[in-house]
């Protein structure tokens, strides 16, 4: 019977990992196309968590539903943020970008602290403790729903990048910026759209995450690091990579937390990051540079 416990942990990790993967997808899009080191990525996710939490507590709306308007709002925020503040930092040195985004992260994190206080806020969904029985396993409904939602959004994004003109134009910018500009693509507008799309992913992911984790301001930096680890392990520039990386990290953290100790679960992720950076920098599914 012991294997079913491990299997349960693994399944848990996969489902959670898909949601992390969606968040990382946003970073892959931003970092991979606009090439901005978004060190405020996790903080944006936490804002989305609080937004979903608020909407649930005041209006009783399920995060699975509010996920869409939140994502739409985040798209707008991302678009505006890129077009106004961040655009002048594109192409500048990493440390300058880093300071800008760290500044933004500090403002967000402490703004949340001021508004909501430091305590963790759970969204107590009515079905939070329900689960489906699949064979010997009990899988939380919330995890399945959020994983499915994450996959759905990722699939939509994939279609956007593959089959629409704008999506193709964005991929062109990522591949060859000078070429894209020369062909007449409005790079500034495309970058803004890309940043918006990236933050929309984060918004959706954050809304989903509040169903499986409590919202707290201090989660920001941890989620930022998590997103970077997933993107690098999975491979920059690959959407499937972000999801695969998310699943991999989700499973490894779940197993590490279960087998070794919860406080050490991130150790494996960081070791994996170092290994990937050193040995296979393009990640699992990334394109060869």
């Amino acid at each position, binding site marked *: 019977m012991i294997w079913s416990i491990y299997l349960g942990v693994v399944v848990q990790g996969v489902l959670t990992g898909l949601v992390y993967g969606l968040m990382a997808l946003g970073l892959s899009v931003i970092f991979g196309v606009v090439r901005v080191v978004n060190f405020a990525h996790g903080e944006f996710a936490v804002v989305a968590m609080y937004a979903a939490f608020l909407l649930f507590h005041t209006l009783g709306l399920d995060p699975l539903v509010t996920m869409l308007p939140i994502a739409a709002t985040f798209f707008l925020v991302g678009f505006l943020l890129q077009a106004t503040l961040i655009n002048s930092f594109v192409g500048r040195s990493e440390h300058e970008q*880093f300071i800008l985004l760290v500044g933004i992260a500090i403002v967000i994190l402490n703004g949340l602290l001021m508004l909501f206080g430091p305590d963790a806020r759970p969204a107590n969904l009515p079905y939070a403790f329900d689960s489906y029985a699949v064979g010997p396993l009990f899988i939380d409904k919330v995890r399945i729903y959020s994983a499915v939602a994450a996959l759905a959004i990722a699939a939509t994004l994939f279609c956007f990048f593959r089959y629409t003109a704008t999506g193709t134009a964005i991929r062109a910018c990522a591949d060859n910026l000078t070429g894209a500009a020369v062909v007449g693509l409005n790079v500034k507008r495309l970058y803004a759209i890309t940043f918006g799309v990236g933050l929309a992913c984060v918004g959706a992911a954050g809304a989903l995450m509040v169903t499986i984790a409590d919202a707290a301001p201090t989660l920001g930096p941890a989620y930022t690091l998590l997103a970077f680890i997933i993107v690098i392990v999975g491979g920059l520039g690959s959407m499937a990579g972000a999801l695969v990386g998310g699943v991999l990290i989700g499973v490894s953290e779940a197993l590490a937390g279960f087998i070794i100790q919860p406080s050490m679960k991130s150790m494996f992720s960081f070791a994996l990051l170092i290994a990937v950076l*050193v040995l296979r920098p393009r990640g699992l599914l990334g394109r060869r540079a």
Partner: protein
Amino acid sequence: MIELWRGLEPRARGLIAMLLVALAAAPLAVDRYLISVLTLVLYFAYVGQAWNLMMGYAGQLSLGHALYVGLGAYVAALLWVHFGIGPWLGVFAAVLLAMVFGAVVGWLGFRFGVEGVYFALLTIAAAEFTRIAFDNIGFTGGSGGLFLPYQQERLGEWWNLRGGQLLFYYVALALAAAGVVVAAKLSRSRLGYQWLAVREDEIAARSLGINAFRAKMTAVLVSSGMTAVGGVFYAFYYNNLFPAQVFDIERSIELILGPIVGGLGTVFGPVVGAFILTPLGEGLIALTSRLGIDAPGAKAVFYGLTLIAIICARPNGVWPWLARVLGLKERSP
């Protein structure tokens, strides 16, 4: 050091002399609280300088420098608590261990071509990995922390960093000054020029005969070793160490803000940056409590906004602009 002094124009000499005298005499004029703020300023001026050597000159972005502070702190503290070995001796072991870790990080990065953001992430991973490890190691106190006992009878042993506020103030002042001298010497040395070349264009640097790997490794070793000394100070100043605090990424971020805001790759940048940011932080705490805003995080929000403002307005740092205003000419590569 004499040539350094001679190399300065009279105006610069005057300003530096005035600054040193003012700082040395400060305890006579200001109260304990301000001295403690100044101690913090000088501490950050020192560790910021150590980080500046690696980033501002050699161009290698480390976002996990708290690793070296923590290692330095823990080594010296453990030697003191368990073996009674004072920091005047323990500092050597601290520096050595930090340099070993720095060498590993450097080797992993430079040998395998991990650059830019990726190298920065590598440094973060190394610091986080170590933080979690220390959280779970018994003899360092684990997550419960390591404490340096208060020993009344030992007060006055300045070589063991046992003393009052004034002792730590002057030690910090000495460290900050030493940091400036080291940076000044290195920036004018052959190694300093090699660092600049590697920073600007590594391929071109190699075509001129510079062994880029060795230059970068030297930068990491010097930087990590110097930072570890700051860690020793930290341990004996605060007398308590928690992995979640001392290795935290917030500490890493904190110590690089000064040099970036002040001016990367300049000798006085980290000092100026520390003098701007640390009092700003403390001042904001005082201001928000004075205005009656009792929200935790208010100070930090203003702090974040200030960072954004500075990096937008003066991306090269405040010091190059200030130097121009003062009519000084620091060679700012």
